[in-house]
């Protein structure tokens, strides 16, 4: 069951195409990573979902219904470029934004009290926005986004501007919301958080969707049959079908090797060849990081294990 499905979306601006036949399906209750480099069309797509703009072609369905203004109250949106009225009191401002989303004043006040207690920011209620630090303002903005308990939450780079403690706090809240049944679209180019949080991803590059699916499946798809082997002894020779990409001696008498095998060859064959020469301490398959997949797709490099990735891999112990 999809909470949101966008079909064949096209959006042109005066001098460039922002979205070119993009379709995505977002399963209910998931955290959906919307990835792509700057200027790829992520924000354009989000603006269509939040009904800030309309597509030139294509349709968006929300819970199976054609997206309409009545759905506004069921979607929450935290833009990347954020800000609030500087000259307004924190409490008043949050009440105003909640009322614009259709909450009654009493309901909004009650919910705000809960959030303020949760974040331990009760004393901020009467403060002017301009007196808050950037991180504090971000917290307020997060509350403003989730206060009307949207079914679909769109977070554009939600962690920028947070220190690690507060970033964790927000991450926990995001996970809690997901557990309560909220669906989250998570737009970012910080790949570590994608790996931690996202169940599904879609990768947009140059106005087109170039990749989408469940995160695990995509990672498996991008496996290169590469193994990192560490052990004791000296690795003298291997059959030619094994491609030793790197060989290091971290200590006298020890080794660390990165070995790639052709498709269809089982890891046991490699172990067989190794076992006669050295003591194996660890034998780990290298699963590509989201970062690697991202770079590989965006830059269009065909080398499955580019030099910089290899270097990074050989440095980790």
């Amino acid at each position, binding site marked *: 069951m999809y909470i949101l499905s966008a079909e064949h979306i096209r959006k042109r601006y005066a001098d460039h195409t922002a979205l070119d036949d993009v379709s995505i399906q977002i399963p209910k209750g998931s955290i959906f990573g919307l990835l792509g480099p700057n200027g790829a069309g992520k924000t354009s797509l989000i603006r269509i979902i*939040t009904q800030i703009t309309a597509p030139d072609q294509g349709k968006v369905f929300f819970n199976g219904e054609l997206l309409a203004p009545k759905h506004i109250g069921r979607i929450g949106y935290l833009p990347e470029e954020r800000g609030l009225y500087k000259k307004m009191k924190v409490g008043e401002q949050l009440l105003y934004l909640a009322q*614009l989303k259709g909450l009654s004043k009493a309901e909004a006040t009650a919910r705000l009290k809960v959030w303020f207690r949760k974040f331990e920011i009760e004393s901020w209620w009467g403060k002017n926005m301009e007196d808050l630090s950037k991180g504090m303002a971000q917290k307020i903005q997060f509350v403003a986004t989730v206060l009307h308990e949207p079914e679909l939450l769109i977070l554009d780079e939600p962690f920028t501007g947070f220190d690690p403690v507060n970033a964790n706090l927000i991450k926990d809240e995001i996970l809690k919301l997901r557990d309560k049944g909220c669906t989250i679209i998570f737009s970012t180019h910080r790949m570590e958080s994608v790996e931690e949080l996202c169940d599904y991803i879609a990768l947009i590059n140059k106005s087109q969707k170039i990749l989408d699916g469940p995160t695990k499946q995509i990672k498996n798809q991008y496996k290169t049959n590469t193994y990192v082997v560490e052990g004791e002894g000296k690795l003298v020779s291997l059959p030619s079908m094994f491609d030793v990409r790197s060989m290091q001696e971290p200590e006298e008498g020890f080794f660390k090797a990165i070995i790639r095998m052709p498709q269809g060859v089982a890891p046991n064959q490699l172990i067989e060849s190794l076992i006669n020469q050295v003591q194996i301490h660890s034998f780990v398959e290298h699963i590509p990081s989201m970062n690697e997949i991202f770079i590989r797709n965006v830059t269009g490099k065909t080398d499955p294990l580019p030099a910089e990735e290899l270097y990074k891999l050989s440095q980790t112990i």
Partner: protein
Amino acid sequence: MKKILLILQREYLVRVQKKSFVIMTLLGPLLIAAIYAVPVFLALRENKVRNIAVVDESGLLKDTFKGSKQLVFTPIGNSLQTGKQAVLDEKYYAVLYVPRISVDNPAGIKLFSKKGISLDVEGAVERSLKKEIEDVKLQQAGIDKQVLERIDTRVSVDTMSLTDGEGERDSSTGAAFIVGFAAAFIIYISIFIYGVQVMRGVIEEKTNRIVEVIISSVKPFQLMIGKITGIALVGLTQFLLWIILGTAISTAAIGVLKSRDDVSQEQVDAVLKESPALEQRANMPEKVMTALNTLNIPLLLGTFLFYFLGGYLIYSALFAAVGAAADSDTDTQQFMFPITIPLILSFVLAQYVIQNPDGPLAFWLSMIPLTSPIIMMVRIPFGPPAWEIALSMVLLVLGFLLITWIAARIYRVGILMYGKKVSYKELGKWVFYRV
């Protein structure tokens, strides 16, 4: 609709609670009161009697040479030297020296003083001398002063306007002039002040990046209309408070002046009379009030409200579009220009229209929606034909709808556009974008 009300409420409350609003609202009437009160007050303080010694070598001035309440002339014989000494010893405020002159060419009269002489005193002395010499001339010509006074005639023409059916009606060109111009001026100033506030508000939302949050809850058009009407209400509130406070302060001020023992009402009147400018100002409300009675007040108020709102709405929609197209206050210059031109132009041309309120210039400018709020208001007191008023109003409403439509289309694109220098060509494209 509910959302527009919410936006309106916020725009209104935020501005009304601002310190600058409270200060302006309180200071406005105080400033106006001060414009009246300070000169009167200062004049009253200056009002001590000044003694002026007179050295008259010509013998033209009689001993009874009369000054005024504030000026006393004392003849001290023919020695200028003693006179000067007396002034230096501060026995006299000044010494007036009249050399041997002929009445036809009274040149060389001098006034010596220790301190500088104020313009008031100089004027008063000149007026006294003029009267005295004129009297001498009259005598020489053998004209009895009393005869002259009988000849002096005051003429005042009552202008009457002829209307079909009703017959004659009092009309006052002066009143029409003042009322028309005042109304046009108020509309002109408030369009500027509150229009710019609308623009600032839009830019604030844009630079604060809050607009994206708001626009994901409401339509851009709702946000624009809520903002414009909210600020209109702020303006109306300020006007209302000014009227109330202004009336209260001026009543209180007059009360205070009257209650002071040392200052009588006659004195205040005397001060006002001596300074023609002050007198005019002091009499203005009275004159306007009497003149107003000759005008069609309900029509005047009705049309004022209509053109005030119509003009404000049209221009603030444009100001909102400018705010949306700009990234910062300094960015607005290039787009402000074409908006302020018709506004300033109509105010400048109003001065010609008022000379000839039924001419072709007056007619056409009062039909064009961007100039009609000011030009028609200038014409209304002169009683333009009803069909012209009706047509102008219809055109203003149509113009408002068209311009707001265009402005809203520029607005909805502009508020989401960051860091881009926008050209006129681009603005044109925005109007026809699909949203």
